[in-house]
């Protein structure tokens, strides 16, 4: 990279940026999250997987500074921290890109990129610098924009996501939290976003990728933490877990099998879908014994 990214400190790849140790969050008597342990390293993608209501948003809120944790330990660069505001998390280099992206659709890309942190020049803004930087920063993320003057609303969903990511990176993020970036996107657009996540990892950022789709997580992830009903189901490096394991754990073996059973009943035993699903369940080795007998009949 030839251009200057002012605030990003060069961190050696593999350095642990965030450590989460048996962290938990209670709202009064409600336990939203408990006993979650994982880590985020520079140049790695930590995927947080879980279905709706698994505690993913609570986990994000702790890292992003929206809520402080009540149990366990959060360490940033080895120091114990507890964020009481998003500003504090930002100052520690942790930026969150939420689903709504915080962009203004009718405004040009370059205005959106610098919105809220416009560089000054005399009494006005340094427009030439802003346009140039937007173009080069997006190019560094692999987005080649035709024209930074076009309204951001004219970009595709994936591209908009990437502008938001590039913006967070430019303004000093070392850890990037992406809240379900692929949830609202089609297959092709999701692929585009995954490519940029890989790009951010290449640039040495620690990425926390929140998703409910193991097929999106597996190709780009280095570490996988699974959440279910507010509890961690484990924290695995990529070498210890396969995509099939991941999928099976996500859905829960027994639940997946009963779904296969259900499909078989409604669509007939010869149904490809049911057969495939059953084969998947068997392969992943999480089949519970009582149902394997029942499905034979």
């Amino acid at each position, binding site marked *: 990279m030839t251009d200057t990214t002012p605030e990003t400190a060069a961190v050696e790849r593999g350095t642990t940026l965030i450590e989460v140790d048996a962290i938990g969050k209670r709202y009064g008597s409600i336990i939203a999250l408990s006993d979650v342990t994982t880590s985020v390293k520079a140049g790695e993608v930590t995927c947080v997987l879980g279905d709706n209501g698994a505690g993913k948003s609570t986990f994000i809120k702790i890292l992003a500074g929206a809520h402080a944790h009540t149990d366990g330990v959060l360490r940033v660069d080895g120091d114990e921290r507890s964020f009481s505001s998003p500003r504090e998390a930002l100052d520690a280099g942790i930026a969150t890109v*939420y689903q*709504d*992206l*915080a*962009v*203004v*659709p*009718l*405004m040009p890309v370059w*205005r959106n990129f*610098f*919105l*809220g*942190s*416009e560089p*000054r020049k005399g*009494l*006005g*803004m340094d*427009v*030439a610098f802003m*346009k*140039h930087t937007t*173009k080069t920063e997006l190019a560094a993320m692999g987005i080649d924009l*035709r*024209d930074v*003057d076009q*309204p951001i*609303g*004219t*970009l*595709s969903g994936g591209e908009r996501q990437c502008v938001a990511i590039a913006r967070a990176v430019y303004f000093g993020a070392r850890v990037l939290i992406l809240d379900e970036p692929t949830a609202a996107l089609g297959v092709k657009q999701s692929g585009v976003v995954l490519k940029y996540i890989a790009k951010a990892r290449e640039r040495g950022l620690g990425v926390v990728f929140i998703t409910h789709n193991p097929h999106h997580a597996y190709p780009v992830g280095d570490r996988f933490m699974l959440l279910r009903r507010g509890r961690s189901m484990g924290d695995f490096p990529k070498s210890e877990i396969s995509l099939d394991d991941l999928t099976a754990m996500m859905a829960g073996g027994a639940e997946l099998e009963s779904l296969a059973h259900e499909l078989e009943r409604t669509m007939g035993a010869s149904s490809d879908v049911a057969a495939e699903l059953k084969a998947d369940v068997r392969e992943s080795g999480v089949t519970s014994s009582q149902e394997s007998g029942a499905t034979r009949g």
Partner: protein
Amino acid sequence: MATATAAPDERLASTSAITRILTRPEMGAAVAAVAVMIFFSLMSDRFMTGAGAGVWLESASTFGIMAVAVSLLMIGGEFDLSAGVMTGFTALVVGILTTNYGLNVWAAVLVALVLALAIGAINGYLVMRTGLPSFIITLGTFFILQGIDLAVTKLIIGQVTIQGLTNIPFYDSIQPVFGSSVSILGGTFYVSVLWWVVVTAIATWVLLRTKAGNWIFAVGGAQQSARQVGVPVLKTKIGLFMTTAFAGWLVGMISLFRTSTVQANTGVGQEFIYIICAVVGGCLLTGGYGSAIGAALGALIYGMTFQGITFAQWDTNWLRTFLGAMLLGAVLLNNWVRTRAETSR
């Protein structure tokens, strides 16, 4: 700033320069202004003379100053229905304080400015704190001020018109600032035209080249997003309401010192004309998009039509019909532009 664009991208077809000009928010108003100018030049011999131009420029200038301020506010996503009555209110404050209480005219003008800014700030604060539409809040302020204008004026001076302003001390020192004129080519050109140009130039610069301009577009386009990235939404919106109030004060002073009199009902009903001028100039009613130059052009169209109809010796009631038709046309055009700007290519 032509230097801002880097080497041209090969995927940008050469037609895009024209397309970009055509999709500028003020483009519709510019085309319409030229059409209206040609039309009335053909309808009346006096229209394009120095005398004629002086008349319609003067008419356009006061509407233009207000329309430009209102356009900033509309880009910021709000309305101000008290903008019209504000011009009368500030003029009445100066008129009563000087003729009735003998206050120094410069001091009175300053008092009027402070009052106007305070009312603007209250408008903005109420809108932001209550979360109610600015349409309702400023409709309230509009009626409150309208009542005060009439009742207080009658209560203090016993009539509804300020008289004797020219006899107050220092009148000659302040009159030229707001009401002087020069003769060029047989026409009388008022200083208000200069104010109009200055206000438009400053507003355009602020919108396109400053932080504040970025924030105005952002709070009107997506307030929640703007807040998330750290734009001071409250400050920006209150500033916009105060800007509109400031313009109301400026126009109030211009009309007061040009005619040296003011009626208690001055400005009532003109708030909608400002909004029409801004919309014709490309402002979206939903905020986040528009242009100060466009609003100035909208006011120019209004001024030319207003005086052109008189020059052509038609029934002046046609002005209203024309305004309404132009508003509808502009809204349809803007809607189309916005749909194009918002949807994916």
